[in-house]
């Protein structure tokens, strides 16, 4: 019976029968009797008329999806930023440690060569410049993260 079912399924799905299957149909009384009906069912299934998609349907879907997408976008942006910040914070202690030692060493050397007040003034400016650079670097992180996310999105669509 399984072989009969397989052969008749092939007929139902409109597939061409191979030589073995065709030989089975002509030798098997059950398949011989059924094949006409199965072909008729296949023809009836093929004759279905499905109306076209209403033109406004996809626009409606996109309109309804807009708030969900906005939420996804906010969540994705937050995650990208959180990951970028987390990655950036890893080397921060080392950077602070090196900067501190650089400033201290510079102050020590300057103190030998220059009057105390001048050495302090130069070292303070040096420290302030380093702090400003660090602030600028970390301030850029959200901007870079946002840009990276936009680029990735465009890459996905391309």
């Amino acid at each position, binding site marked *: 019976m399984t072989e009969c079912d397989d052969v008749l399924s092939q007929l139902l799905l409109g597939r061409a029968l191979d030589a073995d299957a065709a030989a089975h149909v002509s030798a098997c009384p059950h398949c011989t009797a059924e094949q006409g009906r199965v072909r008729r069912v*296949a023809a009836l*299934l093929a004759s*279905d008329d499905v109306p076209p998609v209403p033109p406004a349907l996809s626009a*409606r879907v996109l309109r309804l999806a807009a708030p969900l*997408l906005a939420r*996804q976008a*906010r969540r994705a942006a937050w995650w990208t930023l959180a990951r970028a910040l987390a990655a950036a914070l890893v080397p921060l202690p080392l950077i602070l440690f090196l900067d501190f030692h650089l400033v201290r060493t510079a102050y020590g050397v300057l103190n030998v060569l220059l009057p105390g007040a001048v050495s302090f003034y130069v070292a303070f400016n040096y420290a302030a410049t380093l702090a400003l650079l660090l602030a600028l670097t970390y301030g850029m992180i959200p901007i870079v993260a946002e840009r990276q996310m936009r680029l990735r*999105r465009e*890459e*996905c669509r391309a």
Partner: protein
Amino acid sequence: MATDEDLMTAVASGDGRALAELCGRYERGLHRFIFRHTGGRDVDDLYQETWLRVVRAARRFDRRRRFSTWLFQIAVNLCRDWHRRPPPEPVDPASFEDSRAGPSGTADASLDARRLLAALPEAQRSVVILRYYHDLGEDEVAEIVGCPKGTVKSRLHHAMARLARLARQ
């Protein structure tokens, strides 16, 4: 051209244009699937809900899977729930006999694809639509309807036997 899976990654990050592109690719196939499954009832609502589920679950989509399989899986589940919702409409084979026995109507006039599909239980209907109209392989249909490949085979056999009975002269 971006793959469906790439577009899904973009949808997961809230990209509306990627969703529009996916909708365009599957609009016709998905709409037809739902239409055949429900016999034309609540098609637009189910179509819409399928896409909204796609968006809601976009972050959980596994990129290693085929998007089309996942999409139809969602549609099959929604159609399944839909069939459970209202009083079911199993078409009694006897009603076919009655309508065919009418004085003027020929058998072919009363039997059409929609009525044939409506005569099948929901599980068999999904298999017939996916195998016959969408030309999907047994493996993919098995994944979509969530059953072993052997069950897909036997559902198709049972459906065929039932349909052939209905078509019996």
